[in-house]
């Protein structure tokens, strides 16, 4: 530590301290930047170059440098319905997750009292088991002879007489797997809201419903935005749920990328698909954030 002595030299030494602390700032930034550079920026460029490669004639599965923008056109023409389905499934899963998570997060934040910490632990507890394992478990839960399917069938509520291997199962799996990513940011945002603001709204002639609409909901918007993004983005690129819980008719874009990479060894197509997914998500997210107007929120 530098002791700042209150003499005439005080200003100069303060400047030195300021300079030193700004250098420390950059130093602290370095590990993160290095990590990003090695594991994001470089692979990002490689992926982009791969997406433009052209096949070497006569050698299946081998590619060479090129500027084959046609890869994008071909990939899109062949797979665009999977993009639509991915965004639809991810969108539905996000909305359902929001509907489940909001009341839960609200309860934990305002009503749980001393059970608050326990409930938060329970929210994250499933993450201690592997993602894959939990999704397999859903295969059992939604199995044709399982309790849920047979009950719903007895009530004649299922159009295809089954849940497993349908879009419903995929959406259910996505909702379940990404639910904690919705709950936690919502909780963080709701917990910050001063309950006296809700009292004040009541005092100013707002019914409980209006108080929620005019005070609690707008103040929880940062959590809603963060939660929906953290759910929607990974859900849109996910392939495990579609793979395990869906049929061939429920394939998502992640499945197409995976098969192209691993099975067909068509790296340019797989890379092009990844890039388009990234671009589409970026566009969607920016439009969404702009419309939700988060920069205006506290």
């Amino acid at each position, binding site marked *: 530590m530098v002791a700042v002595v209150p003499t005439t030299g005080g200003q100069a030494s303060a400047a030195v301290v300021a300079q030193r602390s700004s250098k420390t700032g950059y130093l602290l930034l370095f590990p993160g930047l290095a990590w990003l550079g090695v594991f994001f920026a470089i692979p990002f460029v490689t992926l982009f170059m791969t997406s433009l490669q052209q096949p070497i004639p006569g050698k299946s599965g081998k590619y060479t440098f090129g500027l084959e923008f046609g890869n994008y056109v071909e990939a899109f023409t062949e797979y665009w319905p999977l993009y639509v389905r991915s965004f639809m499934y991810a969108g539905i899963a996000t909305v359902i997750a929001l509907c489940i998570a909001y009341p839960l997060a609200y309860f934990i934040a305002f009503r749980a009292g001393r059970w608050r910490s326990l409930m938060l632990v329970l929210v994250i507890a499933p993450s201690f088991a592997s993602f894959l394992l939990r999704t397999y478990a859903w295969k059992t839960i939604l199995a044709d002879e399982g309790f849920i399917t047979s009950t719903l069938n007895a009530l004649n509520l299922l159009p295809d007489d089954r849940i497993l291997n349908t879009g419903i199962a995929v959406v259910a799996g996505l909702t379940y797997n990404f639910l904690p990513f919705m709950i936690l940011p919502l909780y963080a945002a709701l917990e910050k809201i*001063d309950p006296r603001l809700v*009292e*004040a709204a009541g005092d*100013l002639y707002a019914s409980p419903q209006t*108080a929620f609409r005019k005070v609690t909901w707008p103040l929880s918007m940062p959590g809603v935005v963060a939660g929906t993004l953290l759910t929607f983005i990974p859900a849109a690129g996910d392939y495990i749920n579609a793979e395990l819980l869906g049929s061939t008719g429920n394939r998502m874009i992640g499945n197409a990328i995976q098969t192209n990479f691993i099975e067909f060894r068509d790296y340019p197509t797989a890379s092009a698909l990844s890039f388009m997914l990234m671009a589409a998500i970026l566009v969607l997210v920016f439009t969404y954030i702009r419309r939700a107007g988060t920069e205006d929120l*506290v």
Partner: protein
Amino acid sequence: MAEAQGTRAVDDLHLQNLTKKFGDHAAVDDLTLTIPAGSFFALLGASGCGKTTTLRMVAGLEDPTSGTISIGDKDITGLRAFERPVNTVFQSYALFPHLDIFENVAFGLRRRGVKDVKGTVESMLDLVELSPMARRKPTQLSGGQQQRVAVARALINRPDVLLLDEPLGALDLKLRRQMQIELKRIQVEVGTTFVHVTHDQEEAMTMADTVAVMNAGRIEQMGHPADIYELPRTVFVANFLGQSNLIEGSRSGTSGDDVLVEANGLTFAIPSDRVFADGSAAIVGVRPEKITILDAVDGDRIPDHHNRLDGIVTDVSYTGVSTQYLVRTAWDQELIVFEQNVVVGDRSEVGDAVVLHWSPKHTFGLDGTGGTTIGVDPEVLALEAVNASLVSDAPEA
């Protein structure tokens, strides 16, 4: 400005046998009270005395265990907060952080479906002198400005009663003084009934026309600030509102219109209408500034009928306007005396033998069954105990 005026309250606020229990503890205990329309009423008490609970029940934020609340002859006990013609200025202001000042102030009007709020909001912002801040967010305002927004946001609804919950507690001393004057001005201007909850006795006395001193869920005494101060009826009020010298004794008879109380071998006279002790145990009380301090040799200059006692000065603090003396009596009690610094250079010093005297009409008699320390801040009591032990431990000079 015309918008804000003409809202003079016409109906009194009545609390009838109001009780609020949390478990076995009665936070508010069978409170019956009428607050006249248009008055500036202060509920004064230490934290935990039930004043805030009372306020919250009037606001509709807390349900009474029993009793009724009514405005005029309209019973509002069963109405929920948003259905009551009552608005609150919250302790922490509770301004909506996502809305600008204009929308904060307009909130109540919009909820009641008022279409054109612009003129009303602007004149209200004028009243609290915040028009230039209309489009700022609450976090961009200073504490005093936020406080005025909170007042404007509540007052714009022209409530029958405006409740203020320690509204100045978060402000520093200088700003608090300024806001006290400001709030008083606004109250006079709009004529709405203000019910002000505070633990700051000076704030209650400067602002309110009626002060109710609350203790343990009950009102100890209520009245004009000067009346309560000059004639406290309980030991709690005597100690809580300002400072008092209280001497324990017992009734020994009467002399004309005066009640005589004997304490530590001395007899004190108190006019009978200033005595509030039924039993024989009585406490003689006098405010520090009512006492005159004289050198012991001047004892013959004291008027005949005055109460008097001898003592030794143990502490002298010069505060500019006045000098505060601590005087130890023959029975080792320390009394406080304030003397105006009218004459320069005529101060008693530590160790001086002095005689204290005061008029019977400045003396009050209180019930002596509960001791003299009810209503004294426990921390002050603890400190006094420490000081006393230090004095007794000090080596003899």
